[in-house]
């Protein structure tokens, strides 16, 4: 029988960094331009199936969405307590948004007792010129990667609008939690391959897949 584990994941980040959209895309597979600012917090759940050879595991992700406004930061501990993973979001085209990442990293490192894995998530790739969007990156990927490496955090890039990197991000969170090693690289280093319309590299992936 499959082993079932539940893990708590919290999304943090400056207002407008796309936390709610990321979750809505992951849970409901839709994107809306009209997602309202989060007031209070929201909770959702999704089960991820992990298959590795004969071994099967189910991980239930209990996902907390939080308000980005600094005024409500005092409530954040209520939602990040006992989290085993935190996805800290920032808008790739907004420097203010990136500047907030370090605040959350420090808060979690300081306040969360157990080992909380950190994921730095650059959102809204669809807005970037390199993906055909109108804006330029507010922060270079090398800077973020260096920062993430220093923290032993993982860095991923996503777009809720074009549904890029989202499933991979949550699968990564689930796999890390369950102690599964992914042979698929995280989305950021894998972007070219993921964009190929036909996945011909079946053999390569067969050793470890979801």
């Amino acid at each position, binding site marked *: 029988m499959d082993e079932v584990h539940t893990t708590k994941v919290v999304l943090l980040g400056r*207002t*407008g960094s796309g936390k709610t959209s990321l979750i809505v895309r992951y849970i409901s597979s839709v994107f809306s*331009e*009209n*997602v*309202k*600012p989060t*007031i*209070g*917090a*929201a*909770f*959702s*759940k999704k089960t991820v199936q992990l298959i590795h050879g004969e071994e099967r595991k189910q991980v239930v992700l*209990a996902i907390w969405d939080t*308000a*980005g*406004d600094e*005024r*409500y930061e*005092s*409530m954040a*501990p*209520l939602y990040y*307590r*006992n989290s085993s993973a935190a996805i800290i979001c920032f808008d790739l085209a*907004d420097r*203010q948004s990136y500047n907030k990442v370090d605040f959350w990293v420090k808060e979690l490192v300081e306040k969360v007792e157990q080992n909380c894995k950190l994921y730095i998530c650059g959102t809204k790739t669809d807005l970037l010129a390199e993906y055909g969007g109108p804006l330029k990156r507010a922060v270079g990927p090398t800077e973020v990667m260096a920062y993430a490496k220093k923290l032993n955090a993982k860095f991923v890039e996503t777009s809720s609008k074009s549904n890029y990197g989202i499933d991979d991000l949550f699968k990564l969170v689930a796999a890390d939690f369950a102690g599964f090693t992914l042979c698929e690289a995280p989305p950021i280093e894998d972007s070219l391959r993921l964009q190929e319309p036909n996945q011909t590299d079946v053999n390569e992936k067969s050793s470890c897949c979801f």
Partner: protein
Amino acid sequence: MHIRLSSLHSIKTSDSNMGWKYLIFVLQDGAVLPALHFHKGGSKEVLQFLERFVWLSISPSNPNCLQVIDNRNALHHSLTQLQIFNEAPSMSVCTRFLKDAYVETMVGFSRVTKLMWDAFGSANINEIANNEKKIEIDCTPGIAVSSYEPGFEFVTCNKLGDDPAVSRLEPLTDVEFTSFFDSRGCLVEIDKFLERAFRGGLGHGIRQEAWKYLLNYYSFDFNNEMKLDRKHQKTGEYHSIKQQWQLITPTQEKNFKEFRLRKSTVEKDVLRTDRTHEFYKGEDNPNVKKLYNILLTYSFYNFDLGYVQGMSDLVSPILFVMENEADTFWCFVGLMERIGSNFDIDQKEIQKQLSLLYGLIRFVDPEFCNYLDTHDSNNLYFCFRWLLVLFKREFTFQETMLLWEVLWSQRLSQHFLLFICLAIIMNQKQVIVSNNYGFNEIIKHVNELALKLNLEDILKKAETMFIQVKRCKTMPSNIKELTETPNSFGP
């Protein structure tokens, strides 16, 4: 039934030859409370718990009488340990009991028996619901004992009595509204106006004028001339505050981080506030720009508070009604005079309201309150959004306007909002309990109620519960305050 531990004189117990135990509480003033019968045991545990707070010693003259020696130190100790909003996932029985000691009141012994039931019984709540059998105690109207679990009994107090009949009306029409004014344009029929606003809301055509009264932009005694003066003066004032931020040069802005952050937050939020509503739809919608101007101007009018998320939700319907920036701004200022402290960074006001709501739930349904206690939800954070943006996210735009009129009329109480919360919570109780929802699921469930609630039913229920609570003869002072009707329409 409430007993102050400090007012307890002694406890009489049944003779050991009797088939079951009972406890009779005798108060300092000589009052003797109705006997609590423990047909299936549990009285010993009640006494054991009480002994944490008071010394009980067997009377030398009567072995069936326990004398109470108040232990002030124990009580004081419990006071310092109080945390109304305990963030620990589960409280120990002892902590919960200490909390009770703090309020120094036991709202019915249901809590004591329930506490022990929680501590020792921990049966599935579904089973309990099925097993519930109510047995009326003789000669004690208003107290019912229900058997939940062998050895423990559930005493339910504060039966709210019959539902009083409440009726709601159609919205106030412009013809009626006009009849409330005298020939000089003063709103003289204040009571009638507020009563109608409370009971039916306002027709859309009169909102632009009427909301100015409800939000203290106009005084009821303003005649037509004074209203024009006020509008003129306040429009000027608005524009001068607005100019303050408009005149900030790009260099100044570059050197003013706080302003840049505030500006970008407002910008991000107006772009996602009610954008599906006709009034705010489409690209380059001038009303979105107005919303932005009003919010940024407010953050200059009230520097300390600034802009906080949630404010855009409150301004949006006001702008829809007023249409012009200056009027909207001053109506919003009026609203913030009342509820602005909800947005304070220390969250004290919101906490205070949540704690009042907690007291209200405890008063009307201690059983459910215990459920919330034991399911990590007694902080009531699932009501945070309701309180902060006055249910704006839970109802449609139209319904929200009506609900706000009901609140702003301050007709029954300035705390009617809490009764609306109570009504919704009581409606959802069954779902929450039968699914055994905890902190996570309750928030999820409550968030998902958005746009699925029936406003008129809820308003009726809220009023019904308000009347039921108000007619209770004895209640804690904090509950009593909630039911007090203000003498006059206040700011």
